[in-house]
């Protein structure tokens, strides 16, 4: 190299280069550290009361929407697994999804997309609950200006975690019990073995007891729709019934039933049956006296990915097209006596089309 430097004049080169490098260092001030302006990162969050509320709201979201725009758990997904695989309900002739058809024909395999989606959505919700429970618990108590809010928020998340784990253990038996957000992406560290049914139930019961102890009996105004202690007691009762733990179930149920309506009932939640059966499903009476806990939907409310496909079983007033799921056959409706108030509300062959003002009669040969 010396030869070349000599040839050119080493100092010239060196000094030119230094001058050049000096200029470069002036412009080279772009930092590589990321500071996203349009995205919140975890280290910035879980600091305030508003953060805690938003973290828990995100847990509820998993009940009525799917991140990929698929049917939400309480929008058809769970119904597909429990009812299409039963004698009640079947895929419609125009439904060509092989996974959905396999549910009805009881030929599903573990890779069935609908089963996978149910599994995925439940754990998606459990993960959101885990994060909220840990995040809200870790938030300084001084950050909360509303008394009792911190405990209530944790209670809400625990209620939903229990609900989802309860669904899972009933559908799949022993399942992985996941209580915290993964700390990293290492797949070995992420692996969790299945827990026994008993351990899963123990966690469900613990979560529901915590929820029942911290949740209020009711909400007003902009909080209506959140989990209540009545809902926690009722769900706990259902868990005990499932476990055939009759005394414990009775204890819980007596807390739910309104005092005076049943022997030994101590509840003061004001629960009762609707006088009109149809009101249990009507929009005007939502979050009413008969509802312990409802997943919330609003028509064109703006939420993305939140579509309730159960009522969309009627996709149109076009008699040539079919609902996405249909009753298995007419024997389902025949289970109900004509005098049964539930029959007329549940099964119908005509519907009023508000857009045209006409009543459409579904006399399609394909309708059972």
């Amino acid at each position, binding site marked *: 190299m010396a030869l070349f430097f000599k040839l050119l004049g080493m100092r010239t080169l060196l000094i030119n280069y230094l001058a050049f490098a000096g200029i470069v260092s002036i412009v080279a001030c772009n930092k590589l550290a990321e500071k996203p302006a349009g*995205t*919140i990162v975890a280290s910035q969050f879980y600091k305030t009361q508003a953060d805690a509320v938003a973290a828990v709201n995100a847990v509820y979201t998993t009940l009525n929407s799917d991140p990929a725009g698929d049917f939400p758990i309480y929008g058809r997904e769970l119904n597909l697994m429990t009812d299409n695989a039963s004698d009640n309900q079947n895929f419609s002739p125009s439904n060509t999804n092989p996974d959905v058809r396999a549910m009805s024909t009881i030929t599903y395999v573990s890779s069935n*997309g609908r089963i996978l989606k149910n599994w995925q959505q439940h754990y998606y919700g459990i993960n959101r609950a885990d994060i909220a429970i840990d995040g809200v618990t870790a938030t300084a108590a001084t950050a909360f200006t509303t008394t009792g809010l911190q405990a209530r928020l944790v209670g809400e998340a625990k209620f939903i975690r229990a609900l989802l784990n309860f669904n899972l253990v009933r559908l799949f038996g022993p399942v992985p019990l996941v209580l915290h957000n993964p700390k990293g992406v290492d797949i070995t560290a992420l692996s969790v073995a299945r827990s026994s049914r008993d351990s899963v139930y123990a966690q469900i019961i613990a979560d529901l007891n915590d929820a029942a102890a911290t949740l209020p009996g009711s909400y007003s105004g902009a909080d209506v729709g959140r989990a209540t202690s009545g809902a926690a007691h009722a769900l706990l009762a259902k868990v005990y019934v499932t476990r055939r733990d009759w005394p414990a179930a009775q204890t819980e149920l007596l807390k739910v039933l309104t005092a005076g309506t049943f022997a030994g009932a101590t509840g003061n939640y004001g629960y009762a049956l609707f006088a009109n059966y149809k009101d249990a499903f009507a929009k005007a009476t939502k979050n009413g006296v008969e509802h312990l806990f409802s997943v919330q939907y609003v028509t064109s409310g703006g939420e993305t990915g939140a579509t309730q496909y159960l009522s969309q079983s009627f996709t149109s007033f076009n008699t040539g097209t079919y609902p996405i799921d249909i009753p298995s056959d007419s024997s389902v409706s025949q289970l109900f006596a004509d005098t049964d108030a539930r029959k007329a509300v549940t099964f119908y062959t005509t519907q009023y089309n508000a857009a045209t003002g006409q009543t459409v009669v579904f006399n399609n040969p394909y309708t059972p």
Partner: protein
Amino acid sequence: MYLRQRYKFYTTGFVLLLLLGWVGTVAQGPTKNVALVGRVSDEKTGDPLPGAVIQIKGTTHEVAADNNGEFRFITGQRVPVTYLVSYVGYKTREIEVTSYEHAELRLQGANSQLNDVVVVGYGTQRRSDVTGAVAGVGKNALSQPAVAFDNLLQGSVSGVAVTQNNSQPGGTAAIRVRGGNSISFSNDPLYVIDGFIVYNNNNFTNSGATTGAGVNALATINPSDIESVEVLKDASATAIYGSHGANGVVIITTRRGRKGGDELSYSGYYGTQSAVKKIGLLNAQQWGSLVNDINVSDGVAKTYTDAQLGALGKGSDWQSAGIRTAPVQNHELSVSGGDEKSKYLLAGNTFDQDGILYNTEFKRYSGRFNYERSLGEKFRVTLSAFDSRSTENELTGSAYNSVQIGNLWSTLLQSVPVVAMKNADGTYNTTNPYITTPTNPLKDILSITNQSIVNRLLANGAVEYKPLANLTLKVSGGVDQIGTKQNLYLPATTSGGYAVSGYASVGSVSATSWLNENTVTWTPVLANSHFFNVLAGYTTQVTDDQSAVASAQKFPNDLTTYNNISYGATPLLPVSAAHHSVINSYLGRVSYSYKHIYNVTASVRADGASVLGANNKWGVFPAIGVSWNAGQEEFFKNLTTAVTNLKLRLSAGRTGNSGVPAYSSLAALAPTNYYFGGQLVTGVAPTQIANPNLKWETTTQYDAGVDLGIWGNRVSLTADVYYKKTTDLLLNVPLPQYTGYQSALENVGSVENKGIEWSLNTDNIRGRFTWKSSVVWAANRNKILSLGPGVSYYYPTAPIGQQSPVIVQVGLPVGTFWGYSTRGLLTADDIAKGVPLLTGVPQQVGDQRYVALNGHTSVTTADKHDLGSSQPSFTFGVTNNFSYEGFDLSFIIQGSYGNKLFNQLEQQLEKPTLALNASSALANRWSASNPNGTVPRATNSPVPQVIDRWIQDASYARLKNLTLGYSLPKKWAGGIRATQLRVYVSAQNWVTLTSYKGFNPEANYFENDNTKQGIDYGIYPATKTLLAGLNLTF
């Protein structure tokens, strides 16, 4: 003392230049200018060589010879000076002149192209010294009419596979240089336009407000501005681009002014386009009969009596009604010129292509200003500026990200033929019992606005300082700004807008990328036999984008459409986003050549990318290449005279890919929504797990090549073999679902690509009649080696209600089709013998017979297997060029072999239903009365499985371009004072040979999604064009 003064002078000059720009000129001492004149001619014939470049050695002074070969310098230089004279196809000569008299400079026709200068990363190299695989794009390919220049690469460079994703005007293409390295992220090559790094990011032209296929960001750049294109393929050539180089580099140089007079030129063409083909669909009577058969299979009464069937006739041909012949036109005007100090080019272009589907169009207005000027003898400034405004009216589609699939075109094809298209009074018939809304798909196409408007500014400037003849310091700065506005309006009278009483969405993206590059190039020569080219540099690039989408529904009327969404009674949640990313790089390269015979190039680049994890921002990418011009060895010259050039090349190196979106390594939280008390509330939750170790995806590439020229390079061959292994893939690794996350972005797994490619150029006939040919051929084999621990395969997300037709599996190419083999239809005999049947559906005579593997007794998803992939066995291109007197004729044939497509459109069309039209193949369905039918019997909406029938061979050979031109003799052209006047007619895509049954053997519904290549579902149909054009130069 002398040295000291010199260094002061140089550094002062350079710093001043940087700080004050033009003021740098004051550092130059005033000298009185003199004229140096001469002429450049062919040594043998004495013909002038217009455009030959004459440089005064040791300065930045250069001029080009005018049409008579004459040149003239006005300069402060004094004789003796040494001219460096170069001209394409001739040996570059150094000629010393000692007087101011007119000098005759004669060049010798080069019998080897070794002296050519090749554009490489951050500079140029003599072709003789190149150690990497670098291929140029021929003039014929570049002169084809095209909306975007990526189309011009198709069939013109070996190892570059271009697939037009759809035929929508301004639509996107998938470009792969030597196969795809990445599984989850971009496999697009890097584009370097006039030294400025341009990422082809189609996200910048898509805010999410519109629907359907995307806008090709490259279509915003005028392809006729391009002077030359070089493609860097192996690591020795691309590693200088380090992090961006893994997918190959396409270096584009735009037209410059030439020295020696001003030139005004116009070029333009006008043509018409039409559909290449239509597919077979059932007519009304055939469809009615199908419906009856479905009724029979369902055990209900037939819908049509025989008399009614007979009366149905042909019915409506929705397909034909949706297609038109459409015009395409392009006009451009340019003024260019230069003198010994400056060169300039000013060009304007207007391009307008209507699509063959109604209400689709691509329109572009663009302007370019290229300028360069020498300031004194040691400084040179260059500027390249381009601005365009493109408007694309797109075919309306569904938002296809895993939710729905299809678009208005596939809807039209599936429209039932028994329904009339129009009423007796000429209005559109909206009484269609087979669709859920009172609308008409033809009317939908005409009345929906689905539009993207893209403004693009691409400008860069550079200052070069040459303190010594062999030392260049260069500082450049540039900016690429993309401003996109998108408009969507679905009137209440359309199927999409009916339920919501009209829907409007507007979106915008504003993206800016700026780049600063600082390089030093030192080219010392020792003893006239040791040639060095040393490059060092630092670059920094910042990319920012901001986007927003706002939507509303429930419009009182259609008067304001998307222009004022506040008329919508129901606003939807607006969204906005912002990203910021930085790449800082240090680069260095040393090329050494001994007598232009033994060459070695070593390069290294260190890149730091903000988008990667905090622990692994930086990556180092080294490469080395050697080459030996064996043909220049004396012993070889004694051996044979037939071989004029023989060069052997070897290279190895690493390149990287950091093509992940910003913030991918962070624990990002996203907003979600829920309702309490009937009111919308916001929730916040994580969407990804933090991965601070996220690092570079690295591709290691080995290349061996040979360049051979025989008989005075009348035949020249370049052949390469290569092996690439990409490790630490940036892969969305599927996680156990119980983590609450579907996947995490990690560096796991590896993919290999290996291949052979060659190109052959022959000069078949010389003389008054000339014939030149060029053939390119390339074969690449892609294979997944690993997907990380515990993962041997996964299925990419399929649209809801469908099963993934592709699998990503170790040992197979990325995106292999996965489904059942079939063996005709089930016969009574089969059933009696108890052949395996598909589980989950009752199967009977006349149904598809699926093949069970490995002796299975029934057919389940375990019997799905590899049905081939969309990756071709080989691709090729053949270009021929003839000329006689003023006539020129050229054609380009291009194609690929062995690639498959999943013809999903046909799969859906062969599904018998009571509400959609079907393929004409169903006319030959099995039935009791047609026991020899080849497609399964009619049942009501059977499950469409992925079977071998739909995975179709999409090999093709296409006459991509055929052009016949005539240049008027000078005496005629001169009559209107023109120096050139050429008229031509050209046919594009006129002939396509293929056995593929869909519209076009080039199809990618999912565009550039690597794992879902080759899915054809109702994409914009293929077009062919016939056009006539004129080139005129004054």
